[in-house]
């Protein structure tokens, strides 16, 4: 009997450890175990335990469920586009998140903290420089936007680290092209820890990169999707027009995966996302549904593509 109790306690404490590592609060489990915590692992303070991670809810239940409450305001989130020509969409999604961070800061009554956009020069020459007028129309307050164009990935990482150690920014966007070897798992871990310590959201914007194991909380794959038409004052739609941007967001790294992905429309005027239904035409035109069926293996001269979801423990190193 006594042996049973000891075993149960061990199991519970292990479960709690896992819950803490995973940053998840198992309802009830932690609290019941806490009183009889025999192991010597570090405890968080009571207040922190109650409030949990600081997040920015994005107002869409499905997206917030994927992100476990909202955009993490302390730590790294990776946003990836698989092709260079999708870089506009990925940058647009990151900019929208930056604008939301700015808005949240302003609503709290804080002084407007700038957004720092670090774009390695290779990335900005390939996909274009951020354009002030366009970003302003997109909802970002460009009066507090600072751009940095470092030459190498190493310089970019250094600037990001420096920026995360001063509490001057409301968000840092780090744009990198591809999977450079100098931004592998250990470097991403370092950035993630810095961002958590500095309490600043870091958006790693990976342009035309492969999926790779990283320390980010979440990795979102962004693809552009056909936009809705522009609404007319009488409620009908203007035929043939291009309205607000729509993104196809697939959560690649998340504890509650949604393999089909979400279609989100960014409304620059309201500064928020709205869920939209995919256009039937677009779904039909899409030759590759997101991870729903097993793909053919890639050509022999290259490493094979990602396997079916659920079988993979860690991605091979792409950098």
């Amino acid at each position: 009997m006594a042996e049973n109790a000891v075993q149960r306690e061990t199991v519970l404490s292990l479960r709690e450890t896992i819950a803490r590592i995973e940053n998840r609060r198992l309802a009830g489990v932690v609290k019941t175990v806490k009183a009889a915590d025999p192991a010597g692992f570090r405890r968080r303070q009571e207040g922190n335990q109650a409030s949990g991670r600081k997040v920015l809810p994005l107002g869409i239940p499905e997206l917030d469920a994927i992100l476990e409450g909202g955009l993490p305001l302390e730590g790294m989130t990776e946003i990836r586009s698989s092709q260079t020509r999708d870089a506009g969409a990925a940058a647009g999604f990151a900019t929208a998140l930056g604008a939301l961070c700015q808005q949240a800061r302003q609503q709290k009554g804080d002084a407007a903290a700038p957004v720092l956009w670090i774009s390695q020069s290779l990335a900005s020459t390939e996909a274009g420089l951020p354009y002030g007028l366009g970003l302003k129309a997109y909802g970002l307050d460009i009066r507090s936007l600072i751009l940095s164009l470092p030459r190498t990935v190493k310089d970019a990482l250094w600037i990001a680290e420096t920026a995360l150690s001063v509490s001057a920014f409301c968000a840092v966007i780090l744009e990198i092209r591809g999977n450079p070897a100098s931004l592998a798992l250990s470097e991403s871990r370092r950035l993630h820890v810095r961002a958590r310590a500095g309490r600043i959201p870091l958006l790693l914007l990976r342009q035309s990169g492969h999926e790779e194991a990283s320390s980010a909380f979440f990795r979102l794959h962004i693809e552009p999707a056909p936009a809705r038409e522009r609404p007319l004052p009488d409620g009908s739609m203007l035929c043939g027009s291009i309205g607000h941007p729509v993104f196809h967001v697939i959560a690649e790294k998340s504890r509650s995966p949604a393999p089909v992905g979400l279609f989100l429309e960014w409304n620059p005027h309201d500064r928020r996302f709205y869920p939209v239904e995919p256009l039937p035409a677009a779904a039909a035109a899409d030759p590759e549904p997101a991870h729903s069926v097993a793909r053919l293996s890639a050509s022999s001269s290259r490493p094979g593509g990602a396997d079916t979801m659920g079988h993979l423990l860690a991605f091979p190193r792409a950098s």
Partner: protein
Amino acid sequence: MRLVALDGLAEKSGFQLGQGVAEARAMCPEVDVLPSDRAADRALLEGLADWCSRYTPLVALDGETGLYLDITGCAHLLGGEKSLLDDLLARLFHLGIEARAAISSSAGLSWAVARFGAQSVIAPEEAARVLSPLPMAALRLPADMIETLGRVGLKQVGDIIEAPRAPLARRFGSMLLLRLDQAMGLEDEPLSPRLPVASLSAERRLSEPVQGEDDILGLTQDLAARLKPELEKRGEGGRLFELLLFRVDGRVFRIAAGTSSPLIEPGRIAGLFRERLQAVHDDLDAGFGFEILRLSVPRSEKYEVMQEDFSGTPDRERPLAAFADRVMARLGAESLFLPVLSESHMPERAAVFQPLADVGMLKTLEAAVCAVPAALLAASVRPQRLFQSPEPVEAVAEVPEGPPRSFRWRRSLHRIARAEGPERIAPEWWVDGETAAERDYFRVEDERGRRFWLFREGHYGGPTQPRWFMHGVFA
């Protein structure tokens, strides 16, 4: 090829300046002739000028072979003029440089005595006595004037000191008397120092040279702490700091670090130099160590002392300034940019990035952004990313002036599902010239939902065939 400079041994052997090399070799076959390198000579002289700034900040170059040091008010630091001169010459001797020097109350007299005299320190009242036996060349006169003077028997300076001035001026021009008066100290002669003098500086002379980066930074922080009371008294903060490192072998390194707002805190000043030392790492060779460190403030500005309030909201500019300083110290002044809007219809000119030089710029820019008329901003759709130079694409349009049906960009074909446009933007003739073609911009969406900004330069039936370009991508 002719000889342009001789060393002591060559002078004794009877060589002369201007002699042909072949003739010199005929006189003495084992003579060692090196090609002259004026740039290297100049670099050596400038290096020596830097080195001499250990005695005085006012160092001026004199031609190709000399230096003027204005030691007004500096001599007592080394125990008087005589010991300063001895120290200088001894150190130069150990560096392997043969030098002659003299101290007097006028630059002309020092020049003359250093080259033709023997005395080292000359009191002001001795000028006439010292100058009299020297040859005319000691007065820095042109060669032909010296020759003319010699022809009439005026070979020593003493010959003209006592002579009536009016006939001399009439016959030889005012130059002769000007040079004489300058040498006698009757006429003022301004020296232009090689580098501007810093308003403040602090210096540390070390008995044991330091090599380590941490030692240098620690000493820098000490020096900055010594500068702080003086800066506070003036109500100023430094915008530019310069660290001079005197290496034991005579080489001097200057490392400058700019700041984005006036700065007086020693810790942050040392932090700036930490980044600078990282940046110049390979160029800074400590060798056997540095013996003198000097921190100076070439540029300073009014410093606003701010009191922290009790509200607990941290000041937003200070951490930002610290960040900007660190980044710019390490990666150069052009590493951070701010977006600036301007009144222009051409997309590439309407929004540009301007280097962040000053944290105060953030505020002025806010005003500048607000000043641009809202009509210009709201008028039309603009992409979120813009290519610095538009990229040519091959486009196929259904009707000549209409939107494209498909286009090939970077070797991949995009079929267009929808298009908006055209938005015609006429070139600004006052910038682009009158012959520049107008652009018709289209916002297009391809079948996969990618949105692009294309334009057609020129129109059908115009002077040149129209061409299509990709100018930006939308979110």
